[in-house]
Each structure stands twice: as C-alpha cells, then as structure tokens.
C-alpha cells in the first residue's frame, strides 16, 4: 500500500516535472510569438503636416474633420490637457498634441484659432496670449504595416479602452476573466453538460486566454490533444503576463468581421467599421454590439441581420447588468436604443490608391518584414484635406453624371462609371492627393499611375510647345484640310469637333477652342519626329509613333505622366519628379531616407510662360470657360480633352500653386456621352471650390526675354492704334516679335472712329 502510494506520488512528480518542462517550452514559444506580434513595431505612414496661419482661407468643415481625425476630443470648457478641443462656430480652442516630425519637435500647447467668414483671423497661444504667426498641425496617421499583407489596423492600448467596452467583451466571452488563472472549471463543466445534452460539441467554454492561445498557436480543428495543449498554453500565458496585458492583445487581435477581402481585426478597427468612431467614443449599446459579434461576426453583424444583432447585443447587456457593470437605468436605455451602424460607405481605407503607390516605392527600399517590425515613421507629401476634397468631388461628379444620363448606370459594381483625380504642387512635384478610382473596395486598379488612356486634345499643349521657337500666339494656322494625311500607310482625315468657319485661326485661339485641323496642320509643319522627341523630354514613357494623329492625342498615356508634363508649364519650364515619399525615420529619430524635390529643365521659362498664357485663354475664352460658372474667378490655365466616341474625358487645370488632373471614363472604353468640359471640368471646379486654402489667386510673373505687344484680333498682326477695332495683347519671345503691322486696317480709319473724332472736335470748348 505504501509502495503504491509512493509510486503514485512519484508518478505525479514525474507528471508535474514533464508538465513543467512542457510549460517552459511553451513559455519560450509564447514569448517569441508575442514579441513578434506585440512588441514588434509596425511602420507607420503619415500624411504631411498642416500649416495654419492668420489670413488663410479655409474650408471649416474639412478642417474640423481633419482635427477630428487627429484624435482631438470635444469638451465644453477651455481645453486643459493635450488632445482636448472646444469647438465653436467662430473659434476653436485646442490643446495641441506634441509635434514630433523630422527636424521639428514641439511640445503640445493650447491655442485659440479665431475664424472670420471663411478665413483664419488669428492664432494665439492661450498660455501667453501671444499671436502665433504660423502653426503646424501634426501629421495624420494613414496606415500601419501590420501582417504579411499591409493592413489598416487601429491599435489601441488597454488604457484607451473605456471600462464599459472591456466589461462588454468580458460579459460576452468570459465573465470570470479576472477571477480564473487561464482555465474556468465552471465554464468547462457548463460546456460539457450542454454538449452532452446535444450529443455534439455546441459550446467550448473557452476563456479569453484560451481563445488567444487557440488563435495564436493552434490550428482551428477541435480535438482532445489540441484542447489539452490550448489549456497548457493558456495557463502558461497567465503566469507570464498580467490580465490586462492578455486582454490588450486579445482586443487588438480578435476577428470582428469582414468587408469584401478586408478582414476587420481588433476592437479599434471594428469601432470604425461599424460605428465610424474611435473606441473611446463607443456607447454602452455599441460596445455590447461589438462584443456580441465575437462569437460569430458574420452571423451577428448589423450589416447582415439587424434582428439577430439586436438579440445578441441584448444578451450581452443583460449579462453586464447581472454582474453589476451597468445600472438598471443604463440597461433600459441601452436596450431601447437602436443599432445605428455607420454603413459600409463610411468605412474605407484612407487614401488607398496613394498608399498603394507609396507602398510600391517603399518595397524597393525595405522588405515587408522590415516594414512590419522596425517601427519606421514614413512621412509623405499627402495632404489629407486635398485628398478628401478630391474623393468627394469625384464621387459627386460621377453620381451627377449618372443621374443626368441613366445610360451610364451599370448594375455590376466593377463596370460602373469610373474616374480618377491627381493633385500635385507643380513646382515641387509633391503629390497632394491621388484618387485612382471610384471605390477601392471594388477595384484596386490605380487609374492614375497604371492606366493607359488616350489623352485626346489634352495632349495638344505638347504639340504647340514644340513649335514655339518660330511660332507665337498670333501665328495664323490653316484650318483647311490638306490633300492627304498618311496614318501608317492609310489615308486619315481629321475633323473639327464642331464647325469652324475661319480659314485661318491664330495659334492661341486654336488651342483655346481646341480646334483639330489647324493643330494637325501645325504638327505636320513643325515635324512629327520633333514632337515625339519633345514629348519624351516631358517624361512620357508610353509608345508614341510620329503619325499625324499624335496631334490629337490618339495614343495612350499614363495619367500621372500627363499631369507631370503639365507641371512644366506651371513651373517655369522645369519637370518635377512626382514625390509621394518625403522621409523615413527610425525609432530613434534617425533619418534613413530623405527625398527632395528634383527638377529638370525641359523648356525655357519664357516658353513655359507663353504656354501658361495660352492655356489661360482656354479658360478665358475657350473650352474651359465653364469653370467661371462654377464660381472660380482666380486665374487658371487649363486644357480639356475628349477622345473618339466619348471614351475619355479630361480636364487638367493649374494655377501657380496647384495642378489637378481629372479623368472620367469606363474601364472597358464604353462611351460616357460627355466631353472634357461637361464631364471632367465640373469635378475639377468642385475640387478647387472645396479648397480655398490652396489657391492664392496669383498668376505667373512674366520672365525676362518676353515682350507684350498689341495685335489686331482680325489679322493677328501688330495693331494700328485708332485703326484696328479689336485689339488684343499678345506675348512674344523677344526674338520673335512680328514687325508687320495690320494689313487689314492699314490706310483707313474705321467709320465709328471718324464720327467719334468729329464729335470730339465739336465738344471741345
């Protein structure tokens, strides 16, 4: 008997020793896994910071949204700590976060920003009362490189999660979480009885630690060895980490739903997906709703079945009240409240096409593993206010087109009318916004950086600029068809979009009105090979043949390259490299990469000025006049483009401060029944109207080497004072000033001037 007892004791000791050794092994695995996930720092992508200064015009709605996205929370008193904001119609008082960007560190401080109408009246330091001449708001976090595929995950620390959210999750999944040590015998017995009653596995009885163990270390199948291992891991984990640490990892890992191909992981991300708010702002009802999803996210999702979702939420609320975590009153109020999910449309990745474009560049510098673990801070040129305005303007413009023409409406999401917008700063090449399509969830194809579409008339400026050594705005071009235009061995006849009566038309007018025949004639006159060569210098990389149809943009371009080419006209003849990545900084604030504006001269500043002047005529008196109807009064240079059978509509417009390209079309080339003026221009105009801060209202300074002369509108020769009835001002290269005066009005005084002269004589006292 004693021997048996000894043997039993020995066996138990051996078992304990084996268990202990096994736990030690598991501890190593757990530490590796957790340190690989919890303490490895995903790299974070940031937008550019935002400058605010007195006198700046602002779009208050877009600015307020930005401040909200920066994580400031509203209070109804003067802000006392970092992150608080008091927002009123005429002013905001905001206690700024610390600013920590390359080369700049600023402690958070309270400031007051006073608004008058649509501009900032003043900015002052609330501590000292001193005016602040220029204020920099911190960059916005855009994305974290998390997991093998980059994914957007809003990580939250346990301190940021309100108690009622924690309690809701515990109520839903593991009521005795803070009382057990990884295993809950009561829950196991309860699950055993339920399963016995049903003759199958219906309930797991797993604690939160066990669920984490299962998700982190084990395969999904249910069998005894796996269950035993799960228990060991769970117990080991509880020895190694505090309850709050375990809960924090659980809450950031847990699977909570799906939007198309995107998995929604973590409570922070789920808060945005279901309610479009931060986890700190969730109500009790919303917290219970999300907690209720854990069991089967796609079954209880409010987007799938609201009734099931409500029932499940109510169960969670009841458990919370049973455990004293909410009062009876809170229970009643929460049960009464409806579940108001924000809707799929509010949940989207931020600037997804821009981030794709950036990721390609980053992948040339860093491996995916490095981006996941090195905790790099990646600073970009993205201006989120411009990005949001571009997204809004595009969606609004495309929807309006569909409303006006039901033929454009397609049932299948991937066949819908598409559009793309790119906004750049022409001098520096900064990409401020990139919208590569209408809905990233439906199509990730970036129509700005990857599409190849015919530019149509939007290519004409590159024809005209090629001939500026010997031609000028007043040069007269033939509007008559030549005998034959050879297009790869076959005859080709260009047509004007609408009838143009004149036999000759000035270069400026031909571009402003986008007249085709004079443009083709001009291209043939200056030489097609020269045009191709010039276009290459503007950065076009797509195949381009020296056919006459090149004059009308009948070949394919990448929209990004087209926009970049236009930058030259707005940047004194310099071609900028399109910049999206600015800086990469490591955890210790060491700069690893720094990209600066990179410029290359393509044409002289004089020619660039002439081109910008011609393109301004497009808006003043040509095909771009429509923007005036949209309330844009600032000087703008622009060009429209429409391709055969209305496959593509373009509008590229610029000021000295900003350049934006808009493309509208179907991916399969179906007609959109609209032109650059009717389809793309309104989107451009709405975008600019949403961004009063980006347009200064200035125009370009005329560089030396150019002169202005008055020319007769009719003859386009130098005007004769008191002879020519309609005089224009034209800009010439000094070397190209025409010396011939108007031959039409030479030698006679118009009748009205004779009458006026006679009248003046009699008026004199």
């Amino acid at each position, binding site marked *: 008997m004693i021997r048996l007892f000894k043997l039993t004791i020995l066996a138990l000791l051996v078992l304990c020793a084996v268990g202990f050794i096994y736990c030690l092994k598991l501890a190593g695995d757990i530490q590796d896994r957790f340190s690989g996930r919890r303490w490895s720092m995903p790299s974070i992508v940031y937008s550019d910071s935002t*400058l605010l*200064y*007195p*006198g*700046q015009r602002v779009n208050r709605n877009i600015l307020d949204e930005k401040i909200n996205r920066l994580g400031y929370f509203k209070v109804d008193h003067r802000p006392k700590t970092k992150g608080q904001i008091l927002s009123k119609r005429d002013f905001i008082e905001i206690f700024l976060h610390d600013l920590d960007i*390359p*080369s700049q560190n600023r402690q958070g401080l309270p400031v007051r920003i006073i608004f008058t109408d649509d501009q900032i009246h003043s900015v002052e330091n609330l501590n000292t009362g001193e005016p602040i*001449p*220029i204020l920099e708001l911190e960059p916005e976090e855009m994305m974290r490189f998390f997991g093998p595929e980059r994914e957007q995950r809003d990580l939250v620390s346990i301190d940021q999660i309100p108690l009622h959210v924690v309690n809701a999750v515990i109520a839903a999944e593991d009521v005795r979480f803070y009382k057990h040590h990884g295993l809950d015998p009561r829950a196991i017995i309860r699950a055993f009885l339920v399963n016995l009653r049903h003759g199958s596995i219906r309930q797991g009885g797993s604690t939160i630690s066990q669920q984490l163990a299962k998700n982190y270390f084990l395969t999904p199948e249910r069998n005894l060895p796996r269950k035993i291992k799960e228990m060991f891991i769970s117990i080991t984990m509880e020895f190694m980490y505090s309850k709050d640490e375990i809960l924090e990892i659980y809450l950031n890992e847990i699977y909570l739903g799906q939007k198309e191909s995107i998995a929604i992981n973590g409570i922070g991300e789920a808060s945005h997906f279901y309610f479009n708010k931060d986890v700190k702002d969730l109500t009790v009802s919303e917290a219970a709703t999300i907690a209720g999803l854990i069991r089967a996210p796609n079954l209880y999702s409010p987007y799938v079945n609201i009734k099931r979702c409500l029932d499940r939420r109510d169960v969670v609320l009841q458990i919370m009240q049973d455990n004293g975590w909410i009062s009876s009153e809170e229970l009643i109020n929460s049960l009464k409240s409806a579940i108001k999910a924000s809707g799929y449309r509010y949940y989207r990745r931020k600037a997804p096409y821009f981030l794709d474009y950036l990721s390609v560049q980053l992948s040339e510098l860093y491996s995916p593993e490095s981006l996941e673990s090195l905790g790099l801070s990646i600073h970009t040129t993205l201006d989120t206010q411009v990005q949001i305005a571009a997204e809004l303007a595009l969606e609004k413009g495309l929807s309006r087109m569909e409303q006006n023409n039901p033929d454009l409406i397609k049932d299948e999401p991937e066949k819908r009318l598409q559009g793309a917008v790119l906004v750049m*700063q022409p*001098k*520096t090449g*900064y990409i401020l916004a990139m919208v590569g399509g209408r809905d990233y969830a439906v199509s990730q194809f970036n129509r700005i950086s990857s599409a190849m579409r015919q530019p149509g008339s939007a290519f004409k400026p590159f024809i005209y600029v090629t001939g500026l050594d010997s031609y000028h705005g007043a040069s007269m071009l033939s509007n008559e068809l030549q005998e034959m235009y050879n297009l790869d061995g076959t005859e080709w006849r260009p047509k004007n979009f609408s009838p143009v009566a004149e036999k000759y038309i000035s270069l*400026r007018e031909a571009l402003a009105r986008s007249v085709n025949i004079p443009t083709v004639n001009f291209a043939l006159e200056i030489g097609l090979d020269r045009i191709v060569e010039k276009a290459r210098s503007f950065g076009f990389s797509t195949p381009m043949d020296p056919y006459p149809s090149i004059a009308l943009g009948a070949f394919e371009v990448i929209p990004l390259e087209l926009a970049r080419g236009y930058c030259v006209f707005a*940047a*004194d003849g*310099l071609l900028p490299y399109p910049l999206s990545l*600015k*800086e990469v900084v490591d955890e210790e604030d060491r*700069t690893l990469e*720094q990209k*600066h*504006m*990179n*410029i*290359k*001269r393509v044409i002289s*500043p004089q020619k660039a000025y002439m081109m910008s*002047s011609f393109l*301004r*005529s497009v808006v*003043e*008196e040509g095909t771009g006049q429509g923007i005036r109807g949209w309330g844009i009064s600032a000087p703008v240079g622009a060009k429209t483009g429409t391709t055969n059978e209305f496959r593509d509509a373009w509008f590229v417009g610029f000021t*000295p*401060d900003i350049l934006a390209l808009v493309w509208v079309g179907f991916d399969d080339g179906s007609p959109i029944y609209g032109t650059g003026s009717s389809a793309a221009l309104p989107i451009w105009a709405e975008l600019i109207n949403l961004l009063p801060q980006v347009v*200064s209202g*200035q*125009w*370009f*300074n*005329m*560089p*030396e*080497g150019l002169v*202005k002369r*008055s020319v007769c*509108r009719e003859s386009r020769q130098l005007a004769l004072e008191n002879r020519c009835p*309609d*005089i*224009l*001002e*034209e800009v010439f290269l000094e070397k190209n000033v025409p010396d011939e005066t108007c031959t039409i009005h030479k030698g006679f005084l118009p009748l009205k001037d004779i009458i006026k002269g006679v009248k003046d004589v009699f008026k004199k006292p």
Partner: protein
Amino acid sequence: MSLKNHKVTDLSPFILGLLLIGGCAVSGGSGQTVLEDQSAVPVEEPALTETEPEDMSWESLKPKEQEGAEEPEQPSPRILASLRLTDQGRELIEAGRPDDAIRILERAINLDSNNGRNYYYLAEAWIMKGVLRQASEFNNLAGQYLKGDPEWEERVIKQRRRILNKTL
C-alpha cells in the same frame, strides 16, 4: 474676356514692398548684364554666412513704415507665411542642416512660388550637399525671380560663380 484684360503682375507686392523699404531702385539691368558678369574671372566666394547681410531675420523681411513714404502694399498672408518658412530655412542652412532646410523651403515654395529667396537658399542647400545640377537649376530660378533687386541679383551671380567653380 479679351486678352488685353489679362492682368499680369511683374513683381510680387512683397518684392515691391522690400524695394521701398530698402530704398532700392528697380535696376534697369538686363539678363545680358548677368551673363557678362558670369563670364568674368571666377572669384572664390566666402562662405554664405559671411556674404549675408547683417540682419536677415524675419523682422528685416517685414515691410516697415517709413516717414513720408507711401505705405507699401501689404503682402498677402500666404506670402507672409511663406517668408517665415524662408527665414527658418535660412537659419537651418546657417546651422549646417541642408536637408532640414530643403524640407522647409519646399513648403515655402508651396505657399508662394514667386519668392526668389526660396530658390536662392535651396541652391545654397544643394551646394552644401554637393549636388550641383540641382543647385544650378535653383540658382537659375533665383535669378529669374529676384530680377530687379540689385542686392539679391549680385548674390545670385556670386552663387552662380561658386557653383561653376565647384563644377569645373
């Protein structure tokens, strides 16, 4: 709208303001003058900080009231904000931090692309970094935008010579 109604501003209000403050007359010199100077025998220029005027702070850039003088046109808030950044950029160059200076000056250009000083300092930063092709492009832009300001024109010419000397 006819083309004769196009209003083209040859000099930004700020430059006009500066000229009034400094009592500088707009030079009648042309681009040719610059080129002639450029062909002169290159002279080694002293370091930037030595060639800079004594007071190049923000205060010195602001238009000041002058007795009896007409009040200069007030620069737009956007131009003023840009100038603050220009000043920061200059300080960073003086502190030997060209990369940080470039970052600030690029933002200054985004606010006011007509301010030639930004290009001058960008050229300076690129000289410090030893990238002379970029320095040369920015120097050309500085020359273009600072035309009519004799003091700055001279600095731009000297900077050009320094770039040429380093290139050769």
